[in-house]
């Protein structure tokens, strides 16, 4: 790979051991994927911020960068979802040991200069890259969203490369940074009506399984909301490793480029039958222990809708609404949070059941998120049901789900 004089200095150790190590990781990765040079970046969204993800290995990696090598981020750097609610760790039952390790990790990131956003939806709380901007993002759902819906450019960065990008201000030029890799590999013909976030999640889950890390292009999706696309992004990157998709007539690159598909692509039909397949995978009747909304973190519109559905109701099952701190603050001011709390439901910030310590011994969880339905069974040792927000709330009020999708 061709490096500039400045990049060569970084690699030779002139700017210290950690910058050298960072550049070394980026060059190694770039060489594997045939990058010809480095690109400058000034925007990082770092995954690997929950102690559940880093473990002691990652914790020590970040602590060393922060305190041994006094590393400093050259970029604007937001942080992904963490393992605790920063303000209510004890109240939610997270252990002292886990909480203390989590706080150690956050101190290290803060020392490096990162912003403590603690959210998987940085694009809802101020990290909004420009169209075409080269960024270094992790968090699988946010990667798919920022590439596809916003038209910025990133590969799927892991914690170590997001940190390396922050400390060097560079990413290797390969993959989704290049025009030729942003064309569609599959055409997805949607032949059923998508009525809510749950349906978009089911679509993403079905397609992600088939396309893996390739680029799907969706046809016949009408006027999706931000929340619909957030759900689609998260699902595609759970069953698969999708970093980029296009929706004809909706997402920016599909609007600009009429030939968004490669030649001779495979077609996939998503109709009633396929929707039903995903529905059956995530369905089991029984007493409902928990309902989860906000995967990825809820937008203010979702909080508003949940408040409307829970108004003057009392729930028998536990409900968590997970969201970012800024969105929760707005929900507080607008009175939505009080309505939600009065029903018995909880607003949980900064974390979610995928990235937190498992603190409940539950059997059945309902959610409108395909991502959560996918991860929770392994991580929390329970069954999940993928259903609409309305049905999930009705079931939480009854404390029971009958299984009729």
């Amino acid at each position, binding site marked *: 790979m061709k490096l500039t004089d400045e990049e060569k200095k970084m690699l030779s150790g002139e700017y210290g051991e950690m910058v050298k190590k960072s550049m070394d990781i980026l060059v190694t*990765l770039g060489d594997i994927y045939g990058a010809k040079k480095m690109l400058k970046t000034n925007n990082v969204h770092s995954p690997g911020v929950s102690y559940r*993800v880093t473990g*002691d*290995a*990652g914790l020590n990696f970040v602590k060393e960068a922060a305190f041994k090598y006094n590393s400093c981020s050259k970029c604007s750097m937001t942080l992904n979802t963490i393992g605790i609610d920063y303000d209510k760790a004890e109240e939610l039952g997270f252990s002292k040991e886990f909480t203390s390790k989590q706080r150690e990790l956050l101190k290290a990131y803060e020392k490096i200069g990162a912003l403590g956003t603690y959210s998987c939806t940085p694009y809802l709380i101020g990290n909004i890259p420009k169209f075409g901007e080269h960024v270094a993002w992790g968090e*699988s759902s946010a990667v798919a969203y920022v590439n596809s819906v916003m038209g910025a450019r990133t590969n*799927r960065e892991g914690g*170590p490369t997001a940190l390396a990008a922050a400390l060097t201000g560079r990413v290797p030029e390969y993959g989704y940074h290049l025009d030729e890799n942003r064309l569609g590999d599959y055409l997805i013909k949607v032949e059923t009506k998508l009525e809510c976030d749950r349906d978009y999640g089911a679509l993403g889950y079905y397609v992600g399984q088939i396309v893996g890390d390739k680029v799907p292009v969706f046809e016949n999706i009408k006027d999706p909301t931000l929340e619909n696309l957030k759900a689609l992004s998260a699902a595609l990157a759970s069953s698969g*490793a999708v970093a980029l998709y296009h929706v004809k007539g909706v997402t920016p690159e599909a609007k600009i480029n009429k030939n968004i598909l490669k030649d001779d692509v495979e077609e996939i039909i998503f109709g009633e039958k396929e929707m039903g397949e995903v529905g059956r995978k995530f369905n089991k009747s029984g007493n409902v222990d928990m309902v989860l909304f906000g995967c990825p973190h809820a937008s203010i519109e979702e909080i508003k809708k949940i408040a409307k559905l829970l108004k003057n109701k009392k729930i028998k099952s536990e409900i968590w609404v997970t969201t970012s701190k800024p969105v929760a603050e707005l929900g507080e001011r607008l009175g939505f949070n009080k309505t939600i709390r009065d029903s018995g439901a909880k607003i949980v910030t900064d974390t979610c059941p995928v990235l937190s310590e498992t603190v409940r011994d539950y059997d059945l969880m309902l959610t409108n998120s395909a991502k959560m339905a996918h991860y929770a069974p*392994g991580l929390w040792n329970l069954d999940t049901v993928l259903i609409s927000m309305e049905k999930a709330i009705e079931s939480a009020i009854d404390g029971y789900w009958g299984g009729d999708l």
Partner: protein
Amino acid sequence: MKLQGRCIVQGEVNGEALVTNDNISFMGTINPNTGVVIEKGHELEGECLKDKILVFPQSKGSTGGSYMLYDVVKNGVGPAGIINIMAESIVVIGAIVAELPMIDQIDIDQIKTGDYIFLNATEGTATIERRE
């Protein structure tokens, strides 16, 4: 039988193959403290990765997987090496940091669970000895 692929992370290691046609997310598929596969319905559910040459198509899912691969290796319950069809960035990043020998561009249908593998990642080769 000797298969030629591409070096991802250098190193030489031997071990028993653990093979799956399902993709793996090190965040969500694996318990990093035990090395056991916890994803419900995964072909390898209940299997332990410790000291195995892990053979799978490619990584999927959470970008937290890079640190979790590093963690499972540091905890002494991770795989000894990795063989993929096509290396996806999340597992590559984890393998680089964990210094875990890894190759890709291998036809994994040629390998069966229980085969003994001499993995020379530096040269990009896997030599397979069938042990029935």
